[in-house]
């Protein structure tokens, strides 16, 4: 396996040219959180969600029955997808992540790979370099999603958390802060809704999108364990508008509310992760295009004759 770690720090100032870039997330805080999480001694304990989503994304790669000479894994973390992929499907793999210690602690895989330390929003690759771009559980912290996806080429298969993820935690904290403090601030990062995802991918120049939703429900002993696991996964909030303080009373109140409103019979509490899987293709001449208007040569009226046709086929 050929490994080379190159550090490419793009200057933030160059991003002013991007049109309409939102700035919701503090990327340097996210890098610090990921570094801290991957340098924990027991960081493998928190990998369950990433492993599960990584294996499901790898399944979708197998469904596309093609061999990809060059693939890119954006925001790979400790590389949870590569171990499920084989050399027949992906011949060479580039792994990028914003955090250096995640790349150093990554899982072994049989595909020859290169590691590149890069921010997902400023990928240092030319257009049309890759045949396959993968991303699992990292795009939900990117500020400018269409801009980030615009660069590489080929097929894009990704998974983000979205929609109703962690709604139990969000509601419990909201109610507790309302009751205890009289107002509430957002503690959970804003997620993309399923409906918006199609638009975002369309803006990034992808054709033929498929988006599907999967819900993973994980049971925890209580709210504190949910929060500490999220921290251990490196998924702490890094939005600029996050409140840096959570009062002790509010934590107590929210834990009680969580248990009462959402608790299971055996005393555990569920946390929902809604994973959105997307597959998008860059436009290509070989893709089927809609035919010109007026070129139809069968009519819908023939549908009624279909059943008669089937019966005659069965008899003969």
């Amino acid at each position, binding site marked *: 396996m050929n490994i080379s770690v190159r550090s490419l720090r793009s200057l933030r100032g160059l991003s002013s040219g991007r049109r309409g870039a939102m700035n919701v997330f503090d990327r340097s805080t996210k890098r610090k959180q990921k570094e801290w999480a991957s340098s924990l001694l027991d960081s493998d304990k928190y990998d369950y969600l990433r492993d599960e989503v990584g294996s499901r994304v790898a399944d979708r790669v197998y469904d596309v029955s093609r061999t990809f000479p060059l693939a890119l894994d954006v925001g790979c973390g400790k590389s949870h997808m590569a171990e499920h992929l084989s050399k027949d499907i992906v011949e060479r793999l580039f792994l990028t992540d914003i955090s250096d210690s995640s790349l150093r602690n990554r899982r072994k895989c049989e595909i020859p790979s290169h590691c590149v330390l890069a921010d997902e929003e400023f990928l240092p690759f030319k257009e049309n370099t890759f045949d396959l771009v993968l991303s699992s559980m990292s795009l939900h912290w990117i500020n400018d999603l269409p801009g980030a996806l615009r660069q590489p080429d080929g097929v894009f298969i990704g998974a983000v958390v979205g929609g109703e993820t962690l709604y139990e935690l969000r509601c419990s904290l909201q*109610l*507790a802060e*309302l*009751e*205890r*403090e*009289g107002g509430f601030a957002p503690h959970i990062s804003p997620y993309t809704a399923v409906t918006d995802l199609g638009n975002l991918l369309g803006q990034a120049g992808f054709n033929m999108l498929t988006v599907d939703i999967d819900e993973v429900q994980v049971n925890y*002993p*209580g709210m*504190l*364990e949910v929060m500490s696991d999220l921290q251990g996964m490196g998924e702490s909030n890094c939005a600029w508008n996050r409140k840096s303080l959570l009062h002790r*009373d509010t*934590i*107590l*109140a929210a*834990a*009680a*509310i*969580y*248990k*009462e*409103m959402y608790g299971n019979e055996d005393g555990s509490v569920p946390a929902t992760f809604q994973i959105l899987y997307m597959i998008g293709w860059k436009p290509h001449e070989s893709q089927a295009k809609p035919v010109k208007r007026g070129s139809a040569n069968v009519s819908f009226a023939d549908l009624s004759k279909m059943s008669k046709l089937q019966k005659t086929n069965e008899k003969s």
Partner: protein
Amino acid sequence: MSSSNVWSRSRARMRLFPELLAQCSGEAAAYGKCVASTTTGKQELTKNMCVKEFEALKSCFQSAAKKGVK
């Protein structure tokens, strides 16, 4: 082991939180029910609407913390 500082001490205190909360499950359930009932009712949830239940929960929690967890 690194030296004990305010972060390691407060993290250690937070680790005790779930066990202490488990000792006050009755008060926690009462408080949770009070807040949950406002979500279905007509009134909006305002500050200190369930203050009685919360004070009961907090005092139970603090006495559990004073007793110490074995």
